[in-house]
């Protein structure tokens, strides 16, 4: 093997390209694509064998994305809001596999909130990523449950409901790993993904991933003028204007940062302080509460319980994969049935 090639190989002899998927069909500039890229990078850098990973998703823009990374892994694009149950069954097939689930804010916080919370309380070993943009994309721009109160969307008017905070919901359900990040902050995201892939249990990552097409405010002067300037009537929802992805420079821990989106709205990120102890659940809840009151979005690893026991570990299963068990493991001998018949006589 030529050394130049070998240099690009990771420790198991694979190149980054070996972790690619099909070309994306999401909007240009969509934050979900950068999340896919970070998953590719994290798996590549962590020397994970693609055949040892299984991908899951629900329904929505986010849930299409598992097709765009890890072509050499099995995957199942399931039902809207019901990915947790699908993964909960599938990961018992061969418990040496690692699960990555991709969901969206509608998929998780609206239709799938029940399954989400039960997944979390069972602590299935699964990295559960919410690509959170506060809006329904495939149905052309309705509010999701994570949309902030007062947000206004073109055809929906003003959102009058308070949002569901995914990190809060996860913590309330006794999550063992809760993180939040931003699709435009690849460095932090990669770190969190790696931590999540190493976690022994359900790892919830709420990733703010702005929708470049629908989550803009009709009454925003910037948005309006932007549309005018490009002669892009925003009412024409079939036309999807190409835009640059939103990125931010890395910023110091413990600081607050305002990030301007394309449409002029602002997301405030507060990075957690260096001395923050993510294993302290009380602190995690206090920080989340403080952030809600101040209209911040805290990012980073919010909570982790490194000693948790996952669902599979509690099932006392045989060592070999269940889906490879031979028939004599599955059908008890005839003598046992004779005993049972006797019992009923």
């Amino acid at each position, binding site marked *: 093997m030529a050394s130049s090639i070998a240099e690009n190989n990771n420790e198991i002899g694979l190149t980054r390209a070996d972790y690619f998927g099909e070309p994306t069909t999401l909007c240009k500039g969509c934050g979900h694509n950068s999340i896919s890229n970070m998953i590719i990078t994290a798996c590549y850098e962590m020397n994970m064998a693609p055949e040892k990973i*299984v991908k899951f998703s629900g329904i929505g823009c986010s849930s299409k994305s598992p097709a765009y990374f890890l072509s050499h892994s099995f*995957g199942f694009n399931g*039902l809207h809001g019901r990915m947790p149950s699908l993964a909960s*069954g599938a990961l018992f097939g061969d418990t040496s596999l690692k699960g990555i689930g991709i969901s969206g804010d509608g998929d998780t916080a609206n239709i799938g909130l029940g*399954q989400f919370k039960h997944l979390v309380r069972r602590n299935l070993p699964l990295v559960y990523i919410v690509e959170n943009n506060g809006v329904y994309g495939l149905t052309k721009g309705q509010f999701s449950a994570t949309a902030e109160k007062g947000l206004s969307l073109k055809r929906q008017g003003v959102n009058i409901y308070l949002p569901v905070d995914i990190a809060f919901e996860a913590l309330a359900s006794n999550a063992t790993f809760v993180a939040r990040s931003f699709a435009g902050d690849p460095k932090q995201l990669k770190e969190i993904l790696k931590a999540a892939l190493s976690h022994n249990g359900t790892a919830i990552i709420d990733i703010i991933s702005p929708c470049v097409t629908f989550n803009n405010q009709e009454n925003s002067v910037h948005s309006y003028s932007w549309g005018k300037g490009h002669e892009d009537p925003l009412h024409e929802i079939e036309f999807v204007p190409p835009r640059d992805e939103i990125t931010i420079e890395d910023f110091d821990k413990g600081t607050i940062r305002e990030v301007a989106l394309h449409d002029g709205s602002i997301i405030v990120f507060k990075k957690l302080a260096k001395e923050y102890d993510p294993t302290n659940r009380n602190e995690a809840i206090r920080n989340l509460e403080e952030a809600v009151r101040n209209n911040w979005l805290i990012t980073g690893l919010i909570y982790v319980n490194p000693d948790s026991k996952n669902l599979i570990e509690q099932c006392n299963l*045989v060592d070999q994969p269940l889906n*490879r068990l031979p*028939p004599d493991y599955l059908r008890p001998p005839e003598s046992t049935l004779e005993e049972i018949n006797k019992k009923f*006589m």
Partner: protein
Amino acid sequence: MTEKIVNDFNITFSTINGSGSSTANSIILKALFKMGIPVSGKNVFPSNIQGLPTWYSIRVNKDGFLGRVERDDIIVEMNPETVTTDEDHLNDNGVLIYNDQFILPKFYKRILSYALPVEKILNECHSPITLRTYLANMVYVGVLVNILKIDLSKVNEALDEHFNGHNSAIEPNLQVIQASFDWSKSHLKKIDHFFIKPIIKTQENILTDGNTAAALGSIYGGLQFISWYPITPATSLPESLNEYLPILRKEKFSGKNTFVSIQAEDELAAVGMVVGAAWAGLRAMTATSGPGLCLMSEYLGLAYLSEVPLVVWDVQRVGPSTGLPTHTSQGDLTFSYFISHGDKEYPILLPGSVYECFEFAWRALDIADELQTPVIVLSDLDLGMNQWITPKFKYPDTPINRGKILWEKELQEMLERRNGDWGRYLDIDGDGIPYRTVPGNNHLQAPYFARGTGHDEYGRYSENPDVWERVHLRLQKKMGKALQIIPNPIEDENEKATIGVISFGSSDLPVTEACQILRQNSIQSNYLRIRAIPFNKKIQDFLEEHEKIYVVEANRDGQMAQLLKMNFPNHNNKILSIAHSDGLSLSAKWISDKILLNEG
């Protein structure tokens, strides 16, 4: 005096829900069974934990007709609330056995009755106050043993088995039974004419319920993954799995489990986990009833399109909606047939006995794997929760069939044979059933992306009209294979027959008996019991061979008749629906009356 009636009568125990009568009733049932007499036990109970009236009926029938009868020969009245109304169900010459604390209405004087000094006997036995409500039921056990001539040693055996030999539990019960027996011997003069005599009709049989049978059949079918949500009348199926899986399916040397059982948060999740597990190569099933099946509809569509083999047991109750949660019905047939939106078809198995609950349970797992599609099994409350005499469970006579699964070696061989051409949804054999790989297969070409969206033969996303139609037409071909492997109908042929009768599931017993009543009324019938859908040639032939076919079932709309008419429109004018739904299983009398009326 009226002639003796031996081994042919119906006893109903009228009690209060939660009073602990089920132990007493099941002990009598088991003792009769142990005496070789065909018996069935049916519980008619309210959706309630404690306080409402509940009835348990034991039918004793030397000829083995064990369906529900509409009237009672013996009523054991332990509920003061129903004492004035139960008498309506008592046959002439029937006998009432009641707690002497109850005041009988005046008109009761005309009927035969025995008053039981329940309080007195319990006092004499010094029965603990805390157990009195419960032990009161043992008084009627002892009295019945004496007046019907039930073998007391068989009662003891049944009691011993019921309490797994725990003397501390057996003793107080036995004491009351013996005291009541003795009291009855010295104080009661036999005025009724019902007798039990040992015969040898049940020696090769067992006594159990359909949900236990289904659980055991699944275990012998290699079930590896069960996810479920509690719902009457299905709950005892997964609970039986939880009882027997740890006994039967642990790895010998390590004691570790070869199975997984998860109680889900709802039926959406239960079936979702099953789809996931089955997709990952585990034998997987869930058990539910109508309301749960409604919730599973979405996932069953996904499993159909993504070709995931799984088994869903629907232990039917009366719907729609919450309906009558503790009462039986065969009303989920058309729903199961059409479940989920879009074009789709599922094999449906229709066990007609507890024995078939066992057999169809292991077969269903094979059929699902062979066809790579969801299989629905329709049982019902009557079959699932009531005690039935049934032939001993027979060990599966065919090896576990996992269908077309490719592991690394087989996939490599196939790729070499076919110049690298393999796709998850490629119909290589021309039978509509592709080859599948499952997660954990380390071959580089094994993985694919499963989805409920349009896809081509290689699992790639596609909205191409030709691709969609091609894949969907190929799926239809699977039903051709299904016809070869699903259970055949059973035909009871009669050369002199003038009419045909069709039924399915738990209606088999009353229909068989109804055919006998028809014969006694000079109407000869051929009887066909459908055991699975899709309908095969034998069913079509039966329709062709008869001028008039009565389709008998326990639902309002005549759902089996509807499906037959839809599938065989040429025979529409010959098919007559005999359908009825009131929460009780059909009775032979109702069926035969209906047919007799129509036959003039």
